[in-house]
């Protein structure tokens, strides 16, 4: 008998068991996803002797991993919301924190790493096949470069948002989370633009533009120090505040979840 399984505090062994179950439950869906990727590439190879994912700088590999990862994140707590399976999920002998931790580890680290390894392997295979077919092969996609790691950093933050969305929304969590994120971005964009306008106006230039994706203002009149501060505020908001908020909010949604309403 494993003493760590029995304890009342956080148990890594229990979290690992939950994680293992998650991976085993997802395996068939992931297999289908993999088959779709291979199928699409096989079709393009039949048509043009090139594997589409290995061209266009490998952007499709990263895109496929990010999109499938976010779709999985949005389904992270599907079983918890289920009318029948939900009670079993809630009463599985692991604490809400252990269950939540397993989901975060699964989608923020294990899935992207595993998917990237598989993608690298497939890309290498496609490269060899293209070469053998007498075509100029596309480059082998690898995850070990700065751009992909940056994409992972973006994905990791977005994943926490979609995990929180999954903990909150029972139906169409991906669409609801996306819509909510867009609404927040829109409001935040307006507020920042207004703020920028006020700051820039005080410096005599009202033609400033705000680039949300880079958190910078396109203006010559804003002092460098304000630009730097804005950039850091933006980075902290994206890489610290947003994921911390999402994780805390998501955890409490899981903790407070009760079995679906029914009177018998």
């Amino acid at each position, binding site marked *: *008998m*494993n003493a760590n*399984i*029995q*304890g*009342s505090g956080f*148990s890594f062994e*229990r979290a690992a*068991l939950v994680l*293992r*179950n998650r991976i*085993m*439950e997802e395996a068939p869906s992931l297999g289908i996803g993999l088959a779709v990727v291979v199928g699409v590439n096989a079709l393009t190879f039949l048509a043009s002797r090139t594997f589409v994912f290995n061209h266009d700088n490998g952007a499709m590999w990263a895109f496929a991993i990010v999109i499938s990862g976010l779709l999985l994140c949005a389904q992270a707590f599907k079983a918890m919301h*289920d009318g*029948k*399976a939900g*009670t*079993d999920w*809630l*009463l*599985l*002998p*692991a*604490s*809400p924190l*252990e269950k939540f931790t397993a989901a975060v580890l699964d989608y923020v680290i294990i899935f992207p790493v595993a998917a990237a390894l598989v993608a690298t392997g497939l890309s290498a295979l496609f490269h060899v096949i293209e070469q053998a077919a007498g075509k100029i092969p596309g480059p082998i996609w690898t995850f070990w470069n700065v751009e992909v790691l940056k994409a992972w950093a973006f994905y990791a933050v977005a994943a926490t948002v979609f995990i929180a969305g999954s903990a909150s929304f029972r139906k169409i969590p991906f669409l609801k989370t996306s819509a909510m994120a867009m609404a927040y971005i829109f409001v935040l964009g307006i507020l920042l633009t207004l703020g920028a306008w006020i700051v820039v106006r005080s410096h005599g230039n009202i033609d400033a533009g705000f680039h949300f994706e880079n958190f910078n203002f396109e203006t010559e009149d804003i002092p460098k120090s304000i630009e730097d501060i804005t950039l850091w505020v933006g980075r902290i908001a994206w890489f610290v505040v947003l994921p911390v908020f999402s994780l805390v909010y998501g955890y409490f949604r899981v*903790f407070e979840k*009760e*079995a679906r*309403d*029914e*009177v*018998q």
Partner: protein
Amino acid sequence: MIEFRSMSFGYGKKNLFSGLDLNLEPGSVYGLLGLNGAGKTSLLKLMAGALRPQEGSIEVFGKDPGLRRADLLADMVFVPEDPWLPAIKPEGWLDRYAAFRPLFDRGRFMALMDELALDKDKLLTKYSYGQRKKFALSAAMASGARTLLLDEPTNGLDIPSKAQLRRILAAAAEPGRVVVVSTHQVRDLEHLIDPIVIVHGGRILFTLSNEELGRSLCSAHLSSLEGKPVVYAERDAVGWSVLLAREPGKDSEAEEGASPDLELVFDAAIAAPDHLTAALSGASLPAYVPEEHLIAKEANR
């Protein structure tokens, strides 16, 4: 031990329980009886921690089930009326789910699977309703948990399986364990559940042990209600099913059943709680016959 203290609970604006107090001691198989919608399943889910009270508190062996601590969850099993099972085989289920329960007895589980004739090579999702129920009950019995919460365990079971379930449940009633069984089909478990807890109108109407019931009441089938200490009567096709008050100094067992029919006790508790209370305390009141049974009597004349 399961303890409800001034517990209130409801769904939305609908209040189901208000200020409910209840103590369930280890070593007994409690029968939770109530009409449809009385909140039996909700009570079980509150004990399990799947629902949380709006006011008051619940403790299971001294711990708040609402916190869903892993050690408490491993020490209790809730078997719903229609159990959900994943699309894996029993061996896979053991590897994935029994691993969370340190006291799970695999040998006992396999023996119960054999006893209940469950196919070990079949996907659990291919099981029939009754088979899923048997599987979930086997898992509960082998779990080693001190709290077993069973919601309508006999629904969907065939007749031999009901007898098997009674035998298995009787073996599960250990001194340190609390077993709570919610059921509509009280006759299926009549000689097993003791005491009975009757839930009605958002409160616990009665908690009655078999001994307490047997001391004051017995049941009988009569052709006429005249001259008998009838507490409660229901007309059937050939006469009256009645609850009789045991008369002091008279051995009623000779002429009537040794213990009262629990369905009649339940009906009496819901329709005529004052009559039942009076009978249990030895007082006498005129027989209570539900109106629909009086009409049936008149029509038969």
